[in-house]
């Protein structure tokens, strides 16, 4: 792929190693994943397949920007799906961009949104073994996410217990659009297990929970639905804070993935303001919401929010806290953020290290 490899690289001495907190792997062919399913679920997969709270089994209700949401140059030469061939991913992304570690975010099969809970749980187990065998073992720079069937809390906890402590897995993976807000009591065992094992929970925008994507109904266009991950992420944070999840599990760490970050300051101002007035409704909340957000939440950058005056991006990072920002590329998706051009403003070397590497190294305990 000459279009990408011809780009000039900085001199080796000045090169900064990068941790990319959002890489999407997909199975190259169905059998790669199906081999890990018990016969009962292989047959179910063949006959019934995915059953979502959504109109299509294998497509988003909103046609995306590009086939498979992918960069047009990310399809491997042999025609395999974008994000499915490790050597090509190495060449096009991991090596080219000096990726020291990459965190895999597994959207394949939308496990957390499967209405058949047992099928979802079987898929989660299969996807975790598949990550290990196809990605993390052959390429130790790639760290897996423990995929769970979020609605099947018992199975989700068992899956976390199974993989916790395995050096190939860096976090638990969830999508926020579920049947209920994530802070509600039925999901607490997941957070208890994650906290007990010191695992952060990466919450990647998306999912089919059955609720309309806005409080005022279903939007029509991808151009509306795509940025609505920001509103979902704010509802998610609000739920985890006001249900008392992060106070109850003081070691919990949540990473808001691919949902933006520029809205974080104004969200915390609003939460603080109205909590002050209505705190008698939530007497279990002891600390100001802004303080809880500052302590328990991290934010990946892609798709990077672009202020009209681009220098303001730096100030937004100041307001959120530079130690809470994690670089992510979203490779191989269409709105990929190139680490060399996504942040066109002056940073100190220390800020650069935090954003591109150090925050993630410390959050995930990578070495």
């Amino acid at each position, binding site marked *: 792929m000459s279009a990408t490899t011809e780009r000039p690289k900085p001199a080796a001495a000045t090169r900064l190693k990068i941790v990319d907190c959002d890489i999407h792997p997909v199975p190259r062919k169905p059998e790669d994943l199906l081999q890990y399913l018990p016969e009962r679920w292989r047959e179910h997969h063949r006959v019934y397949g995915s059953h979502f709270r959504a109109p299509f089994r294998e497509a988003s209700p909103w046609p995306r920007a590009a086939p498979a949401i992918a960069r047009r140059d990310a399809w491997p030469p042999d025609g395999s799906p974008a994000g499915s061939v490790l050597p090509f991913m190495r060449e096009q992304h991991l090596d080219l961009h000096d990726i020291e570690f990459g965190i895999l975010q597994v959207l394949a099969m939308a496990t957390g949104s499967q209405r058949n809970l047992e099928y979802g749980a079987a898929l989660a187990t299969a996807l975790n073994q598949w990550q290990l065998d196809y990605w993390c073992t052959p390429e130790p720079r790639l760290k897996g996410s423990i995929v769970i069937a979020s609605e099947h809390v018992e199975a989700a906890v068992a899956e976390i217990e199974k993989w916790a402590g395995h050096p190939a897995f860096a976090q638990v993976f969830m999508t926020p659009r579920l049947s209920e*807000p994530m802070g509600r009591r039925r999901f607490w065992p997941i957070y208890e297990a994650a906290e007990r094992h010191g695992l952060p929970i990466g919450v990647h925008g998306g999912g089919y929970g059955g609720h309309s994507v806005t*409080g005022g*109904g279903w939007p029509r*266009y991808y151009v509306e639905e*795509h940025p609505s991950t920001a509103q979902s992420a704010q509802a998610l944070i*609000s739920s985890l804070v006001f249900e008392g999840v992060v106070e109850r599990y003081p070691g919990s760490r949540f990473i808001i993935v691919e949902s933006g970050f520029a809205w974080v300051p104004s969200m915390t101002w*609003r939460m603080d*303001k109205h909590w002050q007035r209505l705190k008698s409704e939530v007497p279990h909340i002891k600390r100001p919401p802004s303080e809880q957000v500052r302590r328990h939440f991290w934010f990946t950058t892609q798709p990077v*929010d672009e202020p*009209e005056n681009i220098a303001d991006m730096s100030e937004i990072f100041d307001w959120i806290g530079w130690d809470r920002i994690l670089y992510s590329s979203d490779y191989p998706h269409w709105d990929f953020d190139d680490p060399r051009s996504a942040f066109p403003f002056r940073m100190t070397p220390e800020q650069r290290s935090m954003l591109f590497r150090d925050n993630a190294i410390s959050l995930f305990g990578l070495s």
Partner: protein
Amino acid sequence: MNGPAFSADLVSNASEPVGNRIDCDVHVVLPDINLLLPYLEPYWRDYVVVRGVRNLDLTAYPDTTPLAARDDWRNISGRGGANLELTRKHVFEDLGGGTAILNCVWGAQALHHPHLAAALCGAVNDWLAEEWLDKDTRLKASIVVPWQHAAHSVAEIEKRSADKRFVQVLLPGLLEQPLGFEHYWPIYEAAQRHGLPIGVHAGTAYRHAPTSLGYPSHYLEDYIAMAWGMQNQLMSLVCDGIFAKFPDLKVVMIESGWTWLPSFLWRANKIWRAMRMEVPWVNRAPAEIVRENVRFTLQPIDAPPSQQQLDRTIEQIGSDRVLLYSSDYPHHHFDANDVLPGGLSPKFLQRLLSENALETYPRLQGGRA
């Protein structure tokens, strides 16, 4: 608290003639549905009485919470915004208002029955005219419309249009379909034709969960979530090209915050640049459209912890024309008379307190008390 300074000191902050303020969000609470009976046709009067239609107070606005009314603003029965004399004293004398736009956010706009909704909305407007507007020329009102049925809404707008004391059309924030949908276009057409902005007020008819994640446990969460719902609605209005179809239409987002506006506009601009092929009728950047056609009321101010952040947020909004002064009376967002944020230039204050509202509400021009 080291928060931004708030000040009600008009004279030293601005060369504002006292009493010129236009308060764009003052709430009127209907104390009792029986007050509407005289305004209903016999069929609907019977319907209300025989069927026992009583308490249509909204889930979105329980009037007993600490937010619903400041203690010192409640009447003898514990309600805020239900008494003309108190409203006049608090809004005009204490807060320095010269004109107030009354918003009656009430259950008629959450009913499923479209004809009952239409009858009750009409009665509310009659009641507002007789019990409030007739008694003080400084009071103006929003037309409460049965959005459930567009033709009924248009008829209500037509009926009130000759009464220039009605200055706006009122919609709750979250309804059945997003606000860009064709269902609402006849309402927008009639509003534009009569020089009436569309006021979109925080609140939901609960046709959907208030967030994309479902139903939160607490009222506090629902209230906070209104800002996100309004952001989605703004995106719907922009992406369905409402301001290209109705270029003279103004939309006023009421009681749902505005410190979120910069980050919203950045994200809207970015996705529009990338995906505008999907909505070719949107031929200008969303931020440009919003600055021209959309306005936001002041209170509640979801203010940052420092004055510097507030100053920067206002700079990033990028226009001194989008904010409209409001007290959100009788809701409890500030104490004493500290309704204004500190640090605003005299020119900005003048725009905020009256000029922006005069530009937004053509019916306030010339006919002000």
